[in-house]
């Protein structure tokens, strides 16, 4: 099973809740701002993610999406 975290940068308002709430420190704040002037998060260590989905549920602006894709049997 592979996991992917997708961030829509232009929706972010820079509240840092996703970064603070993550227990395994997957996310971090980027240095480059988006078009609105806020610094969105970026994925720092994807392999540490345990798919709790808290960042997706706590984002007030629907900017983070955590998806896990089941590997097909070969």
């Amino acid at each position, binding site marked *: 099973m*592979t996991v*992917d975290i997708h961030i829509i940068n232009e*929706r972010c308002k820079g509240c*840092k809740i996703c970064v603070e709430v993550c227990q395994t420190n997957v996310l971090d704040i980027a240095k480059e701002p988006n078009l609105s002037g806020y610094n969105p998060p970026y994925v720092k260590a994807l392999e540490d993610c345990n798919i709790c989905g808290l960042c997706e*549920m706590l*984002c*007030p602006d*629907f900017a983070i*999406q955590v*998806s896990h894709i089941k590997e097909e049997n070969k």
Partner: protein
Amino acid sequence: MNKSGFTEEKHPVDPLLHTDSIPSGWCSGCGIGMVVNTFVQAVNKMDIDVENIHIVSSGIGCTGNVDQHLSFKSDKITDSNVIAYAAELGAKKQDLKVVLFLNDTDFIASNIDEFIKAGKSGAKIVVIYINNYIYRIFIEHKALPKTPFLKSSSKDKNATPFNIPHLAKVSGADYVARWTQLHIRRLMFSIEDALLTEGFSVIEVVAPCLMYYMNKGNTGEKIDRMGVYKENSIIKHLEPTENLDLRNQNEIIVGRFLWRDAD
């Protein structure tokens, strides 16, 4: 385009949103956005027809803007008629789920009598009351937030937090719960249960306004400001609602206090 091949800037719940109006106009980190996100995720998870959900919001305050961001059928009503309108709407159609987003001003200040009437007559509505401790209609109203742990934020002693779960229970509600905004999964399950309940459901969400906390000279990240309330809350299911007053207690009691379908 990132590694796994996402090409479109889309979120899975985008069909339920007005994506043109996102990011919303609320302050960054505001609890109303989290409650809206939780509501949308709960609806997305349940197998419920979106056509059967009707949002009603009132004209005053930040919570009145909820219907702008959701693509459900919605109405915006003047402040003193919102619960009466919703109760009538729920009585008209059998399958319709009417969901109200209310805050302090349009609920406690101007709708408390309609709330009691709706409870007595068994109206089929779901009230999501976002308690942000702000009771203010005009500038002349000097009642500023009266929060349980930050009492010195206001010099006015007239406005106090109110025991809404107790009022809902004695009015005849079928489902009563209270959570803070960081109890996000429990809140989602509560919204699902309330949508499945036939009758009058009330959920109180303690989501205090961030601006007043900053006015007091406190610093720190937004999650710390909200975390004060989660750290001081204690989960007690089926607690008697007389004990839930926010005024003179050292901890916020949260939980599911009443569900007549399960009893």
